[in-house]
């Protein structure tokens, strides 16, 4: 009698998948494919064992966006090849596992910089698209999605779909910011930003309160390419909102006398030590000593004092140093161990921003859970379906989580959600750990109304039923509802399959370890050639894959 078919994938694939903020973790079967066939194999495994699949890039989402408890996690970091680069036009084509770090190092020497970067260079492009990341230049450049010329999306049933603002536009605007719930973005074409120097002109501005902070942003947004503010959350009353604002702009041609020097990757590198003796890699250990309420009150006060001295200074700084502030202390999150941290980032229309920010900081102070770090940014709306941006401001707040305060932090976050929703605000899912489905729905309803009013040219923005539109699209692209993360379960609930793929019943499937890798095109979408075929490369040897099932893991 043949042995029973396995009820689960091999235990060797089991891994702990932890949120970047370390506040949640789950166990999943992690696949690390490097080709489309590998992706297909992972989807087939999920199908065979009736599991769900979540996509993971660099793993930099603060919450549960890339987790799938007891399911399959597709880690795309091995799909990290740069496929084509046109230094004349600044157009790059690459796989989703390419990181921002990899990207800027590749293009800087030719005078191009990623048009939008987050605070860390370790995010992958696939993850960046899935979250539709923004940078300190959101008010000017929009999110990264606005710089994507096209991408190829592989749906769970193996179809490849080319998406751009002109082709499959509905999928284009939904998959960017769709958190990997519609398919796997397997190839990305991105327009880079032309730069004439590796330096930025920076202006530092000390602000004594919220009013000054908003005024400083407004005054500089026309002339600056980047504006970002640090706010001292321990300050209250008349000092509330005090902090330091940095406005930066790219250098124009001829402004940098020696652009070849600043456009050298070496000129962008940070030194290995801080104050000559403290290794940057050990900095989090020093930070840990101060990561308590009195310590952070002291640090914030000292920083304010230093900010007053810095006020009005103008200087030049390398692009990488200015943009990737979070990388200046590697593994800084370890300073928050063992409980981790959450980041609460809300986006508020400009008319309500000051009052909402004042209220949420005051509420935090009243509840005795003061954010240790607060970062303020300026934003503008964008045409993406699940967009988080508004014509207004965002405030990102880092809260330390401990065993004792965990429930109180979550309760505070829910209370702040109400304030944000009253102010017409929205949330950024890449940072989220606490949002409820109803708060999410309410924020998107407000968003849809605003988006249709403000961007009438956007064809795909629905009326007020944004979530329904997204889920309809999901049903079309992923009728088996294979792609579900812990984040999606939290915000949409478990999604039931609308139709099963034509295949043998589960009992028979379990006895068929091999599945023909050939995928039939459907009537809905035409199946183009896989992108590796366009590159003139041979597809992976399928026989080898069969011989060595570990190959793709």
């Amino acid at each position, binding site marked *: 009698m043949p042995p*029973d078919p*396995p*009820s*689960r994938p091999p*235990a*060797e694939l*089991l*891994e*702990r998948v932890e949120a970047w903020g370390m506040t949640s*973790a*789950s*166990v999943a079967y992690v696949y690390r494919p490097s080709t489309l066939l590998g992706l297909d194999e992972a989807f087939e495994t999920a199908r065979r064992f009736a599991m769900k699949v979540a996509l993971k890039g660099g793993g930099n989402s603060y919450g549960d966006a890339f987790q799938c*408890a*007891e399911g399959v996690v597709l880690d795309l970091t091995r799909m990290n090849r740069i496929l084509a680069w046109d230094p004349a036009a600044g157009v790059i084509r690459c796989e989703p596992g390419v990181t921002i770090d990899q990207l800027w190092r590749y293009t800087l020497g030719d005078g191009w910089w990623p048009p939008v970067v987050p605070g860390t260079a370790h995010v992958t492009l696939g993850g960046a698209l899935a979250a539709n990341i923004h940078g300190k230049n959101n008010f000017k450049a929009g999110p990264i999605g606005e710089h994507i010329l096209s991408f190829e999306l592989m749906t769970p049933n193996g179809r490849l779909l080319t998406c751009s603002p002109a082709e499959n536009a509905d999928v284009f605007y939904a998959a960017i910011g769709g958190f990997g719930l519609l398919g796997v973005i397997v190839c990305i074409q991105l327009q880079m930003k032309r730069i004439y120097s590796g330096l930025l002109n920076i202006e530092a501005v000390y602000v004594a309160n919220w009013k000054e902070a908003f005024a400083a942003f407004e005054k500089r947004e026309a002339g600056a390419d980047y504006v970002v503010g640090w706010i001292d959350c321990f300050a209250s009353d008349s000092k509330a909102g005090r902090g330091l604002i940095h406005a930066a702009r790219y250098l124009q041609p001829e402004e940098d006398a020696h652009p070849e020097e600043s456009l050298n990757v070496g000129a962008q590198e940070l030194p290995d030590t801080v104050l000559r003796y403290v290794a940057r890699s050990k900095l989090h250990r020093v930070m840990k000593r101060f990561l308590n309420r009195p310590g952070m009150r002291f640090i914030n006060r000292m920083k304010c004092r230093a900010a007053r001295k810095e006020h009005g200074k103008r200087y030049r700084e390398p692009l990488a140093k200015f943009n990737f502030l979070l990388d200046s202390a590697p593994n800084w999150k370890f300073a928050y161990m*063992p*409980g981790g941290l959450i980041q609460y980032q809300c986006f508020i229309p400009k008319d309500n921003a000051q009052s909402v920010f004042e209220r949420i900081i005051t509420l935090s102070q009243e509840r005795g859970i003061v954010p240790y770090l607060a970062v303020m940014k300026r934003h503008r709306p964008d045409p993406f379906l699940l967009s988080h941006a508004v014509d207004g401001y965002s405030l990102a707040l880092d809260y330390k989580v401990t*065993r004792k305060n965990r429930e109180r932090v979550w309760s505070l976050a829910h209370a702040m959600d109400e304030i944000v929703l009253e102010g017409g605000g929205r949330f950024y899912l890449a940072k989220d750990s606490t949002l409820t489905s109803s708060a999410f729905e309410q924020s998107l309803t407000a968003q849809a109304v605003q988006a249709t009013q403000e961007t009438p040219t956007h064809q795909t923005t629905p009326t007020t039923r944004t979530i329904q539109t997204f889920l309809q699209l999901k049903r079309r692209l992923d009728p088996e509802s294979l792609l579900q993360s812990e984040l999606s379960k939290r915000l949409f609930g478990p999604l039931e399959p609308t139709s099963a793929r034509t295949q043998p019943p589960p009992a028979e499937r379990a006895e068929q370890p091999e599945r023909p890798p050939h995928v039939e095109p459907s009537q809905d979408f035409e199946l183009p050639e896989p992108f590796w075929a366009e590159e003139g490369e041979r597809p992976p040897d399928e026989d080898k894959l069969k011989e060595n099932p570990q190959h793709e893991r």
Partner: protein
Amino acid sequence: MAPNWKRAIIVGASGGIGEQIARKLASGGCRVALVGRREDKLRQIAVDINGVSLNLALPFPSDVRDFDAPAAKVEECVRALGGLDLVVYSAGVMPRIGPTEYETAKDRLIVETNLIGAMAWLNPVAKRFERAGGGTIVGIGSVSGDRGRRGNPAYSASKAGLECYLESLRNRLGRRGVSVVTVKPGPVETEMTRELGRLPGMIPAGRAADLILKAARKFGKTAYIPGRWWLASKIMLSIPSRIFRRLPL
């Protein structure tokens, strides 16, 4: 940080300490897979825990002496629970052994249930937790395992063996973030001890379950239940062998 168990397997949940641990965990919202030999008893406990609307307790009938079953059974439980945070091995037997009785069949039953069954169940669990980088394993030892008592040689040997096996697991898995806890209860009121009558220091199974879960939450290595047995055990361990053999234990 104290673990927040959401999904647990209780082996030996059809009565005694295992049943009480399952009930305590479920009352805190933890989903429990009830593993035991007596299917009717498991179903009754599950119905009792779940009431009309809950789905916290799931019965999985299995004999711990079926050593080939656990690998698949653990997967079955994990699938049903949606994950795994805690495993408690509380299956155990202690048949009455006469002072002049040397019965291999009884000894085999004891060792297979108390020790080999534990290995069969905890090996796949250890493999899973090692990969997952977390989890808690609790094994129910006994103060009887501290010394070779003349009353029930096989029982003492099985519990001593279990303690040693759990210590090895702890040494293997500790660096991977897995907590392995050996609890050593004194006499506890269960079906197993009913025929022994009222013993000194005996505690109800519900109280033992509370103390066991408390010890497991503290990431303790070895915990005596209740704590006073630690002192009793230290005294017993210090008694020279020539005196210990004369004691009526």
